[in-house]
């Protein structure tokens, strides 16, 4: 038998000194998280440019007016931020369950139930000091929205119902409940053409951040997003959620209570969307009616996906999409595009973002060598 000289054994048990992989490789993952959604957004804008070119409009004008309508002036900034506020909250309704590997798309339903609950609380507590009423509205909105999405989580955990489908169907149930109540027992007899509840009262409105026209909902959104980030990445609860979301079998083998995690996360997610509903009532509408179903819940899904479900990244993405929707009016006035054009753009962005998911880990120059 012939035997070659035994080669030297590798160093074991140490953190092997590896060659420095270079800046691009070291931060590959982070760069990807910015580069890929950015490219998807740019691609979507390019396709949208072709779309408006078919209407005989100059795409460059389009991009200018979009920028101008969203971020060009202090006025447009305020408009953008006002629209971003509920988006941050509804995006959390998708992003939080995503940490557990769940796809919840029913933020719109939780928003409506949250609005309805907050309105009910305000109407029931008329005459009490405004701060008490406002706090009660927050609690009612969060609880209402939270229980709504928790229902989806419970259906999944105990009855095996797909949470994506159930949360979507619950949107229509929420809308039906809202219509039933505002046209029935909660209807303000004075609201003739647009059935609505009674007003919560000007004193109970939460008002604007001093010196701006942007309502306090933006602060609620920022606080909620930062709190969600801390919860997921810096607390024991968030760690357990990430374990269960990363691999449910691993979570079970270390005895983590998966049901409790799912229900809690769903409650918090729905609570965020419910808070968005409360904000829309207490800062914008002053009452509950079908106007609340303005699609913030659905745009929130887009925000969450574009932000890769990261609670902090939701903030800039929500501002960006808030800006796109804020520019809709300007596009209509200056370019004569239909109002729904902005929805077309949102749809194109969604398709690009979902398709770009396939690119992660496949960009050659960002890959490590080993």
């Amino acid at each position, binding site marked *: *038998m012939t035997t070659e000289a035994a080669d030297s*054994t590798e160093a*074991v*048990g140490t*953190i092997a000194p590896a060659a420095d992989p270079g800046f691009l490789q070291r931060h590959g993952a982070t760069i990807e998280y910015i580069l890929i959604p950015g490219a998807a957004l740019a691609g979507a804008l390019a396709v949208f440019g072709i779309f408006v070119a078919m209407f005989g409009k100059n795409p460059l004008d389009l991009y200018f007016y979009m920028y101008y309508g969203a971020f060009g002036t202090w006025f447009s900034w305020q408009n953008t931020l006002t629209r971003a506020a509920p988006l941050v909250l509804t995006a959390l309704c998708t992003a939080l369950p995503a940490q557990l590997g769940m796809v919840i798309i029913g933020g719109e339903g939780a928003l409506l139930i949250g609005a309805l609950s907050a309105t009910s609380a305000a109407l029931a507590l008329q005459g009490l000091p405004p701060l008490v009423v406002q706090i009660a509205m927050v609690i009612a909105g969060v609880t209402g929205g939270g229980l709504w999405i928790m229902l989806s989580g419970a259906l999944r955990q105990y009855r095996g119902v797909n949470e994506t489908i159930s949360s979507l169907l619950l949107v229509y149930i929420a809308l039906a409940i809202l219509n039933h109540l505002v046209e029935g027992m909660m209807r303000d007899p004075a609201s003739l053409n647009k059935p609505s509840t009674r007003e919560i009262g000007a004193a109970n409105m939460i008002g604007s951040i001093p010196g701006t026209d942007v309502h306090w909902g933006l602060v609620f959104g920022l606080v909620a997003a930062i709190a969600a980030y801390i919860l997921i990445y810096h*607390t024991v609860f968030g760690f357990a959620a*990430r374990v269960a979301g990363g691999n449910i079998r691993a979570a079970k083998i270390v005895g983590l*209570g998966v049901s409790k995690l799912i229900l809690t996360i769903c409650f918090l997610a729905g609570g965020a969307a419910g808070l968005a509903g409360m904000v829309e009532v207490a800062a914008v509408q002053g009452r509950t009616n079908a106007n609340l179903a303005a699609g913030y819940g659905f745009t929130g899904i887009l925000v969450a996906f574009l932000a890769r479900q990261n609670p902090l990244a939701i903030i800039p993405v929500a501002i960006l999409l808030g800006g796109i929707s804020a520019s809709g009016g300007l596009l209509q006035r200056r370019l004569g595009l239909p109002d729904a054009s902005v929805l077309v753009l949102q749809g194109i962005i969604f398709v690009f973002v979902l398709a770009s998911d396939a690119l992660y880990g496949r960009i050659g120059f960002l890959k490590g060598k080993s």
Partner: protein
Amino acid sequence: MIIGETPPPSGAFGVDAIAMTMRFGDFLALDNVELKVRPGSFHALLGENGAGKSTLVKCIMGYYHATEGDIIVGGREQAIANPKDAHALGLGMVYQHFTLVPAMTVAENLVLARDDVPAVVNWPKEMKELESFLARMPFKVPLSAKVSDISAGERQKCEILKQLYLKRRFLILDEPTSVLTPAEADEVLGMLRDMVVKGELTILMITHKFREVMAFADDVTILRRGKLAGAGKVSELTPDAMARTMIGAEELTVQPPRTGEAGKARLELEKVRALDDAGAVAVHNVSLTVRAGEIVGIAGVSGNGQRQLVEVLAGQRDAEGGEIRVAGDPYHASREEMRRHKMSLLPEEPLKNACVGGMSVADNIAFREFDRAPFASGGWWLNRGAFRDDARKKIGQYKIKTRTPDTPISALSGGNVQRAVLARELAGDVEVLIAANPCFGLDFAAVAQIHAEIMAARNRGAAVLLVSEDLDELLELSDRLVVMFHGEFVYEARTSEADLTVVGRHMAGH
């Protein structure tokens, strides 16, 4: 011979692979390897996981194209561009896992495998031909039985028959006995050996079972880390010499001697029932007691309910009935119970069952303790520094090869993932240890380390339940041996008194 031309109708031929080098990017999978398989010989290809055995055979079969090197079939250099070329030359491969269609009969599977299946199959004629073919073969399989109804041993015979039916006369077998009982393995290999001796066949078998090499092979080639480590006649070698050549100069962890006597009952199963994913009964009223300071081994061919039993114990599957008690208390696999009874679990396929691939090595090591000090301050705030410090310590102690503690665990090799799980599960006190195929697919160094850790846990007084498909592992480690077949425990004996043939018979359900 020209590719596409039918090979001579009978007789064995040899295959030589000369100066084979295979690169995948920067990784050198094969480095100037030579393999010479004589015509009409039974050749064993030995090597640890990742030594390059599969790469070498895949080059021969045309799945890979070697960066450099030549393949000589029957004395002529051949360019094998794809598996079809290899088949045309009479080369065939039998895989570790079955490639038969379970819902079809044996005869249908055989005819289906042909390149020239007619649009309308004349079954009476085909059956006649198959029967006369089978009459010439040493194996007998029921032609009209459905593949799903026959045993693993018979399926493996079908796979081999399929190759012979397709007139392949150089067979490459990739760990063909991993799903067979020892008796089935001996039968199948024995019959193949007879055909080799008669000069009808040449066989190249990938394996890591020295017993099979010693009993059936003429020649052996040993690879280590992509290089030729040695080659020679089996008759001139000992298993020890082959093992040394396989692992090189790497130091193996020394397993501590078995010490101490079994104590009180620690883990008790009473009439435990569980279903599989399809809802069929997989674990049927099994009862078992594991005492402190004892290793109970559960043997059985894969798919007899062992996985579901372990999943119940690991909390990954709900039991349908029965009771599990740990130290006398009812057990439902909650975190609190696992902690109170100091339970540890080493599941099979650790990346799939016990880790989150995208989380870091440090995080994965902390899964059992992250919600307590020092990892959590005040029971809720994560203390990142503690994660890293603890991981650094355990990475050194358990010889985990990783670039940093923050590297995602999915970037580690299988052995190092299992080491990280060992570090997590065995670092503290252990009173109950449940391990399932803990060494599957790992290299010698990892296997030796894991065996040593399991034995050490036993010696410290842990009750160990070891479920394994590797009978040698069970015989080496366990104090008592239980055989599981069709969801039931059908045999139990002290390992020192167990008779291998009796164990094998029960594994096959006789």
